[in-house]
């Protein structure tokens, strides 16, 4: 494949060495001082973003967004710049967001509908899905058209108009694919569908038709016969006959001639949608009618009126007569359908390719070469589905179309044999591309999630990579991202989001919030870290902050040992505050003996025991006092930083005071217990 080069405006490889970094949705191009001596100066910068992706005029993917990152190279002048090159420009068109959102709902419905129905009803369902997609395209087209009409900015108007024509081409292609692939119309109905398709999309002549029909006396209008021809060419027989009857009543002399033509048009056999007639029956009737037309033409019935004669020739499928009306058909595919209508009404799907090719050749007549749209339609007529998708990927400026169309065709079980060299199939590849584009948009990323979900091979990996790049601007947004990850058991991402949020909260001194984030992630290590902050604050200030939280830890207290300690330690303070001293004392002791408290905190706990030891009432029993003493000795003896205690006067005094208080308490308790036992 040759891909037209993309130029990044402002990036000049002749002035600066450039380097690249590829991300999932965008390319970073930056100017660098590295390797300036190399011979790459003369090379022209050309980017072909994302594999075989190219552009058809409208949506150039290159978009320089940011600049001016200060250059730090010493001695060199000015600044260097970083360019962000995004791959899916159309994602940023406001009006198209309607298309993305509404089609997301249809896409999800289609994934859910999977395999519920079989046979005919399944096909009807798929055709309905296809029609729903098309109606979204049309609605979007109308909005875009409205926007183009109402804006005064000529640049914007140009953009909108371009989008209208892109959307209209998309709908044209989609509709044809719907007829040929999704519905897979059989010989007979096939022609009727193609006629509908032409009537819906060839609207260049509509204004002419309106003008003539609304004129005072249509039959006197200079374009009268043109309109009759348009109706005949599109197989709109009733409308043609209605117009002709007006002309007939104005010309009583040629009444007979009109009657005969009217009769021929009326009698023309057409395929029926129901199963009321077989193809053979139709062919027989048609042959008969054809011969009748032939007779009238040959015996010169219409010789006096060249307009009517030409219509009779058209009815006979005379190629030259039809081609003469080239301007009224405007496109080769209209010519194809007209030709089929009057020469091969029972055309089979597989025969289409021959007529299509020759119609295009005849219509273009070597004067102009086929355009990309012609090639896509031709590929469709040839039933080359992969070619259609490939050409559309190259020509259209967004991934929306190919991703959704391919997914639909895949649900029709038409694409199964085709695997791509890198392992995933085409459907998945295109969905991944489209969803990656959505994720590069700061607002549409939520839609992308569901698309990744329906990519069995790589969807999960893509989602994991992309979801981590969503900026978590508020807790509310973080909660939404978190929900997405939790629903998919993405534990790694859950942890990382909670950690980010907990860190943020910690930086903002919101210890309570920080703790609830780490509880949500069940992140014991981080809960420990935060508990230490609480304890540190307590040691510094002598009181607890965020009591509303610590008092209400509930079962989450068990998340980390330190958190358990924090909760229990706070409970000790509460008991002490409520003057429930024996309970407080028991709890304090347990915190040490059961090794709930970290060793570094023992001194604080022992100091907390001091006021209890000094109470008038004896609180610690003899046994408890011994235990307290052992704790103190363990702490002083077992401490590797023994030096520290001896160096630190305050600590030494504390230890001495404690020993004294413990000894006194022991004395009191022995006396008391002795007395109690003795009495």
């Amino acid at each position, binding site marked *: 494949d040759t891909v037209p080069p993309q130029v990044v405006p402002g990036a000049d490889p002749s002035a600066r060495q450039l380097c690249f970094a590829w991300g999932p949705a965008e390319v970073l191009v930056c100017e660098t001082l590295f390797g300036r001596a190399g011979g790459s100066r003369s090379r022209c910068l050309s980017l072909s973003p994302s594999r075989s992706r190219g552009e058809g005029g409208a949506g150039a993917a290159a978009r320089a967004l940011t600049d001016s990152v200060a250059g730090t190279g010493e001695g060199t002048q000015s600044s260097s710049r970083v360019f962000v090159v995004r791959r899916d420009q159309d994602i940023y068109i*406001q*009006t198209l*967001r*309607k298309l993305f*959102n*509404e089609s*997301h*709902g249809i896409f*999800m*419905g289609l994934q859910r509908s999977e395999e519920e129905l079989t046979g005919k009803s399944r096909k009807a369902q798929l055709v309905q899905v296809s029609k729903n997609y098309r109606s979204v395209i049309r609605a979007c087209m109308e909005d875009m058209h409205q926007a183009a009409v109402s804006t005064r900015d000529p640049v914007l108007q140009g953009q909108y108009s371009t989008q209208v024509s892109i959307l209209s081409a998309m709908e044209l292609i989609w509709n044809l694919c719907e007829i040929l692939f999704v519905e897979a119309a059989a010989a007979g109905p096939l022609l009727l569908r193609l006629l509908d398709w032409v009537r819906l999309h060839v609207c260049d002549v509509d204004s002419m038709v309106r003008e003539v029909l609304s004129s005072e006396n249509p039959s006197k209008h200079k374009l009268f016969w043109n309109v009759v021809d348009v109706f005949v060419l599109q197989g709109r027989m009733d409308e043609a006959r209605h117009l002709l009857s007006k002309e007939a009543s104005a010309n009583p002399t040629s009444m007979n001639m009109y009657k005969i033509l009217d009769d021929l048009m009326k009698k023309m056999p057409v395929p029926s949608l129901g199963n009321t007639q077989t193809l053979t029956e139709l062919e027989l009737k048609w042959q008969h009618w054809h011969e009748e037309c032939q007779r009238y033409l040959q015996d010169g019935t219409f010789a006096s009126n060249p307009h009517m004669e030409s219509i009779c020739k058209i009815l006979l499928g005379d190629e030259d007569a039809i081609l003469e009306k080239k301007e009224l058909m405007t496109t080769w595919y209209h010519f194809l359908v007209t030709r089929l209508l009057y020469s091969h009404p029972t055309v089979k799907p597989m025969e289409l390719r021959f007529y299509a090719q020759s119609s295009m050749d005849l219509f273009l007549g070597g004067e102009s070469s086929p355009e990309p749209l012609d090639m896509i339609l031709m590929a469709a007529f040839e039933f080359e589905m992969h070619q259609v998708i490939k050409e559309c990927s190259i020509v259209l400026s967004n991934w929306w179309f190919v991703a959704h169309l391919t997914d639909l065709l895949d649900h029709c079980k038409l694409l199964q044999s085709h695997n791509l060299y890198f392992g995933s199939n085409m459907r998945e590849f295109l969905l991944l591309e489209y969803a990656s584009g959505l994720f590069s948009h*700061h*607002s549409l990323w*939520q*839609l992308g999630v*569901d698309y990744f979900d329906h990519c069995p091979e790589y969807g999960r990996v893509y989602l994991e990579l992309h979801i981590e790049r969503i900026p978590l*601007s*508020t*807790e*509310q*947004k973080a*909660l*939404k991202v978190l*929900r997405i990850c939790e*629903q998919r058991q993405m534990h790694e991402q859950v942890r990382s989001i909670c950690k980010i949020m907990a860190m943020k909260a910690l*930086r*903002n*001194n*919101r*210890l*309570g*919030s920080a*703790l*609830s984030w780490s*509880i949500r992630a069940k992140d014991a290590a981080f809960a420990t870290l935060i508990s230490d902050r609480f304890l540190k604050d307590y040691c510094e200030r002598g009181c607890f*902050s*965020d*009591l*509303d*939280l610590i008092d*209400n*830890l*509930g*079962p*989450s207290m068990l998340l980390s040992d330190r958190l358990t300690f924090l909760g229990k330690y706070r409970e000790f303070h509460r008991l002490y505050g409520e003057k429930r001293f024996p309970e407080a004392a028991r709890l304090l002791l347990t915190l040490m003996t059961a090794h709930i408290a970290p060793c570094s905190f023992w001194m604080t706990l022992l100091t907390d025991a001091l006021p209890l030891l000094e109470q008038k009432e004896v609180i610690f029993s003899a046994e408890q006092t011994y235990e307290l003493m052992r704790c103190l000795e363990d702490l002083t003896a077992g401490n590797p930083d023994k030096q520290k205690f001896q160096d630190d006067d305050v600590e030494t005094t504390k230890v001495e005071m404690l020993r004294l208080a413990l000894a006194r308490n022991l004395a009191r308790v022995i006396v008391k217990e002795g007395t109690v036992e003795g009495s």
Partner: protein
Amino acid sequence: AMEDVSAKFVSQKISRTRWRPLPAAALQLPDVFATGSWDNEDNRISIWSASDLGNAGLNGEYHGEPHLLCDIQHNGDVMDMQFLDQERIVVASSTGTVTIFRHHQNNQTLSANYRWEKAHYHVGQDTSCGGAACTGVVCSNPEIVTVGEDGRINLFRADQKDAVRTIDNADSSTLHAVTFLRTTEILTVNSIGQLKIWDLRQQRNEPSQIFSLAGDRVPLHCVDRHPNQQHIVATGGQDGMLSIWDIRHGTMPVSLLNAHEAEMWEVHFHPSDPDHLFTCSEDGSLWHWDTSTNVSEKPSFLHQGGRSTAYLSHSAINQSVVSAWLSNDPTKDRMEITNLIPNQTLSVNSLDVLGSCLVYGTDAEAIYVNRQLFA
């Protein structure tokens, strides 16, 4: 029925929808509503008309989609929004700023009328001062109360520069929503499953009462008070559970009702028919809770074909007051629950009910108006 619902894709994710209050004794249907967007590079406050007068049907019923009257750019995500009166809307921003916008109905424009920059903010370790998201706002003209991620509660008076009252660090976790209990008392819910009552007359910087969920401290996201029986309060949590509290008794919810599969973003009693309650959720559903069949033999006008309708009994503790929400009569203890959105996939972030009209907005960038809720 579904055909009464009109939808419009608006190319922005909607975080809040609010009906403009009707003038007292007005007989007409609600028509004008406001929306706020989030997560856009350029967020907006928009005013819409629900009725397409050009397309009014023969019987005066309205058809067609809502149409935009005017809009204005808004700095940051719209976190919450409430009409102060017929013309003014108070908007809470993710930047911590609280703004009053005025809707000029004569020429259909919006303008910023008053602004409290960084009403909510963090004091970081580096002593820098950054805005903290203002998560909730409630007003009772002229008073405005705001809460935020900074755990702060502000009481403002419209057009008065300085806050009347600020409680710094009122909550150590994030305050998610606020509503008035009585004129001087407010209710807040936070991210550790607590419901708190604050008396703004008291100078103490502490709540006058704390209620909390038992077991896991599931965050609460929204709160609403029964319009007539002020002791009945409904909250919605992160697990999608609806809790009904009787704030005269106990410290735990009277009943816990299983509802949504993900965060419940909003809960609203019907303002004039409080036997009906509406909730919406991150899981893309919107539920209508109807207890009206409980207390009287009213016909069930909400039972519509084709919807999933469930009966659910709720555990209630002894109550003396007859209220459908606190009822404990096992034979009558039923409520009808209807999901108003069968096939939605993305979050319904907000809803508002007034009269027979419901408006809601989604992350799928669409707003929906149902003008015949009780049809």
